[in-house]
């Protein structure tokens, strides 16, 4: 096979009991690519990485890493990768230097090479201060660095990093990202993360997974374009109006906006000003600014702000994986509970914390919209899914247009 393709997953599926963790995942990573692996917790990121590192085997499908099959040559696969598992589990009773030496010995590095690599790793990961400390006494950030260090000690052609920047402070994060960009020039890197800003900075390409399926794969611009919507932020003064007029209420404004032709959704944003701030979304090819302006004028409202925004990756991510989120909020909650990723959900929410409430509103509205379209009632849906775990995947998909393409009837 061509040596250009460093990682090749073809039709990977993995079931844990009745839970389908991965569903026919296929992708290729070429030499020198830095690929961001995105998805909500429990989407199957870690499972995929564990399969690629031969820690677990796929139920169906196969994968090749550096040309070696994960079933036939697991040792060769592991030789060609550096792997940092989630939360960097390390032997807490060893010192950093002992640990790195242990890894190097298992990997058959000779003393000279080890010394050279150790120097490099210390510099890259900033370990000089802690080299002789016990790993058990280190902070989480430092452990993460040691974990990254052991993945790099043998200078592997492929790096697989499961949330390498979790638990790091902003400076460290920036440092790690800078480094990943640096090694991405001649290495292949597959990294998973929740932090979309990092992906935008470090990766040229992203793979977004949701509920065990790939929902988007390609260059970031393409993915952004894929959901094809544009957002408008409109702020209306809530205290002052033209003489003789009453200032508008939030509901009045919202209803008016919803009536504009081409609006897909309207949601209120939090604001410190004495104003109503709304976010509208529309299809990409439409431009609602003129209509919004005319609406404001005809109602004699005071327009404070009107801005047209391209879809952010954040929003794309939410759009593509929303059904997962709804699942997490309690609908059809049974069946996926035992997943390994659930513990560190807080991190995922951090970035969006202030928008969270608004998100919920939006989700509710969208649901309402979709429900009326689909003529399907949410309650009966969740009952159905409770009755049958396997079917709930499909039910939830029905209301997500983007996913329809990826869906397969069973």
């Amino acid at each position: 096979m061509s040596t250009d393709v460093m990682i090749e997953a073809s039709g990977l599926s993995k079931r844990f009991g009745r839970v389908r963790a991965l569903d026919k995942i296929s992708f290729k990573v070429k030499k020198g690519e830095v690929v961001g692996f995105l998805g909500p917790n429990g989407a199957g990121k870690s499972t995929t990485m564990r399969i690629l590192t031969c820690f677990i085997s796929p139920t169906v499908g196969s994968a090749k890493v550096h040309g070696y099959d994960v079933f036939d040559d697991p040792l060769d696969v592991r030789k060609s990768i550096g792997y940092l598992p989630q939360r960097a589990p390390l032997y807490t009773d060893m010192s950093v230097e002992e640990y790195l030496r242990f890894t190097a010995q298992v990997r058959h590095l000779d003393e000279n090479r080890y010394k050279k690599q150790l120097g490099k790793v210390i510099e890259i990961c900033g370990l000089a201060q802690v080299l002789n400390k016990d790993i058990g006494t280190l902070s989480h950030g430092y452990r993460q660095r040691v974990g990254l260090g052991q993945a790099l000690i043998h200078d592997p052609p492929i790096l697989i990093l499961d949330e390498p920047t979790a638990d790091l402070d902003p400076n460290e994060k920036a440092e790690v990202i800078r480094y990943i960009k640096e090694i991405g020039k001649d290495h292949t890197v597959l990294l998973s993360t929740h932090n979309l800003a990092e992906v935008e900075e470090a990766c040229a390409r992203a793979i977004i997974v949701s509920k065990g399926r790939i929902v988007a794969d390609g260059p970031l611009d393409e993915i952004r374009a894929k959901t094809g919507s544009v957002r408008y932020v409109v702020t209306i003064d809530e205290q002052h109006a033209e003489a003789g007029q009453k200032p508008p209420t939030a509901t009045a404004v919202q209803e008016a906006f919803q009536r504009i032709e081409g609006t897909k959704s309207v949601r209120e944003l939090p604001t410190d000003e004495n104003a109503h701030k709304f976010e509208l979304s529309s299809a990409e090819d439409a431009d609602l600014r003129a209509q919004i302006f005319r609406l404001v004028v005809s109602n004699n409202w005071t327009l404070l702000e009107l801005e047209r925004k391209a879809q952010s990756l954040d929003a794309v991510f939410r759009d593509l994986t929303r059904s997962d989120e709804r699942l997490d909020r309690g609908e059809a909650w049974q069946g996926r509970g035992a997943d390994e990723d659930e513990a560190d959900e807080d991190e995922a929410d951090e970035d969006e914390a202030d928008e969270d409430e608004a998100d919920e509103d939006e989700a509710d509205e969208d649901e309402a919209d979709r429900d009326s379209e689909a003529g399907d009632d949410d309650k009966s849906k969740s009952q159905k899914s409770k009755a049958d775990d396997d079917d709930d995947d499909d039910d939830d998909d029905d209301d997500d247009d983007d996913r329809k393409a990826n869906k397969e009837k069973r």
Partner: protein
Amino acid sequence: MSPMLTIARREFRSYFDSPLAYVVICLSFLGLGLIFFLWPGRGFWQQDRATLQTLFYFAPAGLSILVIPVITMRLMAEERRSGTLEMLITLPVKDSDVIMGKYLGALGLVLTLVFATILYPLFMFKFPWVLGTLDDGPVLSGYLGLILFSLAATAVGLLISSLTDSQSIAFFLTFFVLGVFWFSGIMADYLPGTVANVLNFMSFESRMEGFMRGLIDTRDVVFFLSVTCVALVIAFRALERRKWA
């Protein structure tokens, strides 16, 4: 050095990085000393003979009930719980290297303890005290028995540790299983016919009796080695199971 030995060395050293090894060694010696010299009826002074039979009788009992469960409980269970297993296995090592490395590491500590008891015959019958002429044969065969016993018991401990991710469950199960293996010979005395035969067959104690008296029976040697192999193979399978579970 092969990955297996690297893992074994790390495992062995880690016992000494924590207080565990020191506590186990000190307390075992204190306990063995008290029992060896002062146990009512079988104590060395009461027997008044130049023999180490008491040592070979009590050492494996103490090993199987306390020492080996404590040493083996964390082997795989702790790795699973803390997730370091993932780190270890994704290094270029075979699953069998992991199991054998862990086994040899733990066995190293158990055998350190076993060989340290050689101080007893040396100090008592060679130098500085000479308490009589020691019959060397039963001592050598006794040690062979003790080593074989340690091989089997450590393997059983490793097997149980690789089935769970809780150290305490591993400890109690190992404690229980090895206790049953040890005391089944005594239980057999109170039970009839076939049951007694089965219990006698699997009893570590009955198997050790020959070695204590200076008798090396191939059946006993094969028994201990078989238990070791079977336990290691099952432990290996238990580790492989993660791929499919």
